[in-house]
């Protein structure tokens, strides 16, 4: 049998299941109140050089408030999971404007730069075309399976895509022959982010979470990550969690911080609450075309405001919320 093909891309995180076990061994099991501000959560749990992952699906249920705070606090050298990353990737790339230490150092790229049918982000393109951010290619499912492997506590999982393509060649995947059927399968390494941020509908003060709509890869992301910051639309009482425990999607054991951030996914779509603000996403795309214009845009909306409430005010998002809610409910 010929040598089994292997991808030559950089492995941007440690796939060791033992390393994750060691980290989780130290994690508190106590039922304690984890409520704090987004600023405090980012200060305590997201560090320079960390591997960071954001939940949701690009313009749907993403943790926008946490991404903004990462920018505001000037985090540097992050590695990022580009799993269906659209507006969240735009936000990471906003930290790589010339004249400051780059926020983004490396990306596992399954879907980056684009905003689906809305087109390509001019600034994310500039950042990725400059050759200064290291990238490793994957498919969306590969990143979902990599998170699943970490969530399962195993170092890799087999899958049957990426085979025969440059996506595989530029990934850090391997191939192996199945010991039972003799077929060739792709093996992908577990992905255990240092820290993940996930926006949910409801959480109690301990971090028990409920969410509506598609879960994308977030149930595995919460379990795969060493630290988890939850932002939520509403804080609910633990008695409510206990009255219907089958609705708990992420248990408190996974969670380090709970931040109450109403409209915390804006301008993304929050299922059942508000639709995407397409007009505001267009403003982002248009402001990004020119670096100086984009700098002023970011100063006005992110760097010049103290917190996410300031962004909702400055962007007009809060004023548009009744209309976005009407669109979401098709009423």
């Amino acid at each position, binding site marked *: 049998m010929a040598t089994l093909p292997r991808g030559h891309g950089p492995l941007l995180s440690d796939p060791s299941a033992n390393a994750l076990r060691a980290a989780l061994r130290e994690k508190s099991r106590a039922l304690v109140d984890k409520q704090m501000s987004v600023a405090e959560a980012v200060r305590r749990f997201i560090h320079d050089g960390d591997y960071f992952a954001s939940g949701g699906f690009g313009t749907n249920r993403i943790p926008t408030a946490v991404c903004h705070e990462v920018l505001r606090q000037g985090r540097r050298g992050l590695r990022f999971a580009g799993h269906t990353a659209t507006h969240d990737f735009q936000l990471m790339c906003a930290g790589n404007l010339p004249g400051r230490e780059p926020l983004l150092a490396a990306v596992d790229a399954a879907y980056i730069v684009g905003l689906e049918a809305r087109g390509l982000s001019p600034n994310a393109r500039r950042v990725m075309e400059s050759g200064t951010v290291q990238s490793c290619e994957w498919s*969306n499912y590969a990143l*979902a399976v990599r998170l699943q492997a970490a969530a399962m506590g195993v170092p890799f999982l087999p899958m049957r895509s990426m085979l025969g393509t440059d996506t595989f060649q530029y990934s850090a995947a391997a191939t192996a022959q199945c010991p039972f059927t003799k077929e*060739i399968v792709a093996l992908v390494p577990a992905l255990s982010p240092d820290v993940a941020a996930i926006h949910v509908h409801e959480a109690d003060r301990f971090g028990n979470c409920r969410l509506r709509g598609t879960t994308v890869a977030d149930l595995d992301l919460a379990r795969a990550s060493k630290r988890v910051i939850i932002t939520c639309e509403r804080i609910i009482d633990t008695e409510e969690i206990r009255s219907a425990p089958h609705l708990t999607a992420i248990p408190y054991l996974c969670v380090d911080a709970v931040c109450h951030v109403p409209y915390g996914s804006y301008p993304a779509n929050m299922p059942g609450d508000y639709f995407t603000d*397409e007009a505001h996403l267009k403003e982002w795309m248009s402001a990004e075309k020119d670096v100086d214009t984009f700098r002023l845009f970011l100063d006005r909306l992110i760097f010049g405001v103290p917190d996410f409430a300031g962004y909702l005010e400055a962007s007009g998002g809060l004023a548009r919320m009744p209309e976005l809610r009407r669109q979401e409910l098709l009423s």
Partner: protein
Amino acid sequence: MTYSPIELMVVCAARALEDNRSVAVGTGIPCAAAMLAQKTHAPGLTIVFEAGGMAPILPTMPVSVGDSRTYHRGLMASSMAEIMQMAQRGLIDYTFLGGAQIDPYGNLNSTVAGSHDKPQVRFPGSGGANDLASFCWRTLVVTQQNARRFVEKLDFRTTPGFLDGPGTREAAGLAPGAGPHRVITDLAVFDYDPDTCRMRVKSLHPNVTLEQVLAATGFRPGVCEPLESTSPPTAEELRILRDEVDPGRYILGRA
């Protein structure tokens, strides 16, 4: 009755879908095609979206494959792994894909123009395309056609078609029996030669010549014998498409 090239592409794509089958779609033309098929000959078509939406009753065109519309009155709001694993175990019949480049074997590039490490243009990458083209039984590509897009050699092979020809998908480890099925453009419909796995012109759209198609193809495609003519959209197909599928002209207005 007059119609635009986009309308014709949507109609051709819809006709390619059989009733009581399943299809994984993205936003745009594929979604419009699946909706049109449901409202005409394929009411039993199950639509899934890679972010987890399953069997929605689509009220309007989604703007994202993960937005709330993708499971509006759906039968399940699940996860990416749920949808992809359903496809991996053989339950999804069709998928629709596109790309910046396509080669004669139906392989697609949606990653870079130029070199990978310092690209001229960075495109999004695979997204779910590589997975869906590996797993779904039949891959359909819907795209505008020109000689810069239809090339003999890709800058980057993001997504598998027939790879390098007969037997190469299976040799790489991909599941047997799945692969490229049709390419639907603004000029013609293509299928693949079963012996060579190379693309060939199957049918010419109304008022399009074979010379025009060849001039807009950067490689030498085969030509089916007999070469068919695409039936133009019927008045009923156009009415449903314009009034029910895309009244906001989100897709149709792009032409």
